[in-house]
């Protein structure tokens, strides 16, 4: 077994929205190994995104501990979290979040310019099969292509973890499969630990582990002995 990259212990997150307390995470324990592909499944409000946000340094936990390698994320301030995101984390979102005024190449370069040991933007785009489209602006790309640019942008800085919040949520099945393919190929070539939130249960077959969420806790963990290739996916 390879080293543990994330270790969560008794992690809780409570929001106060107005006078209502929302318990998004209720004492969650989790270990994630380096290079693993983890799929997070579960209904809305079950805590998947909250966990991913805290792991990505976008949010603070209310209590408990979360270690990234030797770094205790739960104790970092905003400035340190920014540095953490900059060095170690790549994000992929449901709605791509590309900068419309930059071409595909430039969207990737936006991140490589501030990274420490990035790959070349061309290489990152080649990894997701978009080397031909790198001079296009987002408005000239299809949804799937835009998402692949977003993946290229996320992995170009060679992050240790790739956090994907519903990366295929806005895509049809063919395009969605290509996006998953891209994610898996990055995982295979770079060994990036990949965590994918999805509502699409059929994606779970490509993962090493599947975490089922309910009420701010992990209700079940399923381990795939063999991962299916993305080409075999249907939805």
């Amino acid at each position, binding site marked *: 077994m390879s080293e543990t990259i994330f270790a969560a212990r008794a992690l809780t997150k409570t929001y106060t929205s107005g006078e209502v307390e929302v318990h998004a995470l209720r004492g969650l324990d989790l270990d994630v190994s380096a290079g693993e592909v983890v799929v997070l499944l579960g209904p809305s409000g079950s805590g998947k995104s909250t966990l991913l946000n805290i792991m990505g340094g976008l949010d603070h936990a209310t209590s408990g501990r979360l270690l990234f390698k030797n770094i205790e994320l739960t104790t970092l301030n905003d400035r340190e979290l*920014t540095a953490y995101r900059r060095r170690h984390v790549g*994000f992929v979102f449901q709605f791509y*979040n590309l900068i*419309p005024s930059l071409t595909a190449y430039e969207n990737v370069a936006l991140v490589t310019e*501030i990274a420490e040991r990035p790959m070349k933007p061309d290489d990152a785009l080649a990894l997701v099969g978009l080397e031909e489209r790198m001079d296009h602006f987002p408005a000239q790309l299809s949804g799937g292509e835009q998402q692949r640019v977003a993946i290229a*942008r996320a992995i170009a800085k060679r992050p240790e973890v790739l956090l994907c919040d519903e990366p295929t949520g806005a895509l049809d099945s063919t395009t969605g499969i290509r996006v998953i393919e891209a994610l898996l190929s990055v995982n295979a070539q770079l060994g990036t630990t990949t965590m994918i939130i999805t509502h699409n249960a059929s994606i779970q077959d490509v993962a090493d582990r599947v975490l089922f969420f309910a009420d701010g806790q992990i209700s079940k963990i399923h381990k795939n002995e063999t991962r299916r290739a993305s080409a075999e996916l249907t939805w």
Partner: protein
Amino acid sequence: MPVLDIKLLRDLRRLWGQALAISLVIAGGVATLVLAVGSHRSLDQTRAAYYERYGFADVFAVVRRAPKTLVSQIAEIPGVAAVDARIAKLALLDIPNFREPASGQFISLPDIGEPALDRLHMRVGRMPEPGSSTEVVVNENFANAHAFVPGARFSALLNGRKRELEIVGIALSPEFIYTTGPGDIMPDDRRFGVIWMSEKTLASAYDLDGAFSSVNLKLLRDASERDVVQRLDVLLDRHGGRAAYGRKDQTSHAWLDHELDMLNNMSRTLPPIFLLVSAFLINLTLSRLVALEREQIGLLKALGYGNITIAWHYIKFVIVLATIGVVIGSVMGTWLGIHITRLFGDFFHFPFLIFTKSPDLYAAAAALSLAAAVIGAIRALRDVVALPPAVAMQPPAPPRFHRLLPTGFSIHGVFSQPIVMMLRNITHHPIRAGFTMLGMALATGILIVSLFTRDTMEQLIDVTFFMADRQDATVSFIERRSRDVIMQMARLPGVLAVEPYREVPVRIRHGSIERRVMISGRPQGADLSRIIDADLRAVVPPETGLAVSAMLAHVLGVQAGDFVEVDLLEGQRRTVTLPIAAEVEDYFGLRAMMDADALSRLMREGPTVSGVNLSVDSNRLDFLYKAIKNMPTVSGMALQRVSLGNFRENVALLITTMASIYTSLAAVIAFGMVYNSARISLSERARELASLRVFGFSQGEVMRILLLELAVLSLAAQPLGWVIGYRLAWIMKTNLAGELMRVRLVVEPFTYAIASGVVLTAAILSALVVRERINKLDLVAVLKTRD
């Protein structure tokens, strides 16, 4: 309350910072209009009422000695409503504990009843007892300058005899609102006073029993001033009359008119610029603000609200914003207007002030601001409301950006991605970027207009006091003297050099245009008081022909080589034709100059002198003052150093007050402009910026990306702002140029720097305010929503 109205109030609360900034921009525009036009109207009406109540005359004339029997003949001139004949004499004063010689304009008061015209407004004390030989009333400015109260004493040299005088009253007169002593350009209340005393006493002092030396006329409403003046001149001619003149040539009225004209011109030039700039800015800002509401508009449509209801909802929103601005601006403008009216009212010593209400101003300012705001909103609403709800609810499709350069040229590696983003944003919204730049440029421009007067005044001081009139003192005589007086003056203690001059009052005419001016005869080789031409070089007085103020040449429509007709108003009173030899660079009044000997020949008289310019050893000034105070032939002594001080003081009042008010308003507009641009950009690009934060960009880096565009636009706007500012200053200068005073337009580099500095500081301050917003960007929420 309908739910939409509740939404409106909540939106206002949510956007309070921006709402306030927009309101302040509107307020700035409205305030300038209300304050400038309001204060001018108030002062104008105050003056009119003052003139009316105290019987300010229309026509003025001075004679050597005319019998009182002439008064009834004057009264019979058609068009004359009232006649006030009196004794008016200039005399030297000796004031205890005051080193310098002062001059007094003595005016007789009838021993029975009040003067028919130019009645006094008593501030303190009483009128002199009829026939009293010592009691006098003095004007308030003079009394204040010496802290005189009733009972104070000073002495005067009346017709060569020293008399002790006692102040029994302090008064104001519509005839002497603005008072300048002999040889002075600016009022100096310490060295010049108006002194009223019993007619009987003055008549016996000057041997004018049963006679008068000055006559003022009030005309009927439809009388022709020109006809009356002509007939009066005929009547007075035999008695040594100097040509009569109207209000236009009466010093006090002319200066007051000039000052009010200046205020009026300021109110016509600056406020429209301010108001238009602010209207333009709110139009731009509100249209962007409404465009941001696209999704909400789509939702409202989906829920079944009609287009008109929705449009009206947003129009109400901007109306509320504009109304807040108009109210703040009106209150601020009214308050500043009252402040300025008071300031000038005190400066002119008006006995009372009338604050005019100007509902038309408020209406005009409100209408323009509201229209600009509503049109801005409608511009945005028209596009959004037209969309089907389903489309409107979704954000607009990603805008199609274009490469800056053809595909062959790569800018990779030349610029960082944030700079590429900035450049593409600017080129993608060229109109918006252009307008934002124009807004900043206008802000810089109005600052330059608010500030340039100082440079211009320094240039005026430089030319007037250090190039042209470089003498230390000017001594003027009551009657013209023979040239022997030069030697006499040269022997006075402390006098280093003496230069005589001869002044002859004339009417100068070209075609139908006529002006009353003095021809000043200058000796060859004069070094103290010099003639400066348009290239700012000293020139010798022409031996034939006249050197005239460039303004006089302009008014008469002549240039060097042309001929003018000149009525000599002294001596034989001939009319001659003279060529214009040169144009002179001067800034005060209309003047004509020629060689002193040539002037003597023209007057067919021996060489005579009206006054002398002196260069003085400053260590021996006290001895000189003492000597002058005892010279019965002297009417006054003007001191350049004191004149310069007074000029600076008077100009400072106008300039520092007006400039600081306008500068603050311009700064408010600049701040509102930049703040709104930054805030709206932040809303428009919130998602993009939050993404950058997620990728690990620090707050500072994101802030730089957001503000880079504004910084570039702000900087790029500056040169344009300088050009606009210079043009506006030129318009102001041209509007302000008058026969009494004018300036040469000078805008120092420092002024450009200050104007840009204020705008850029406003930009930086608003950036700091916006930084707080960036720090609060909700990363998670922003990413959950669709683009």
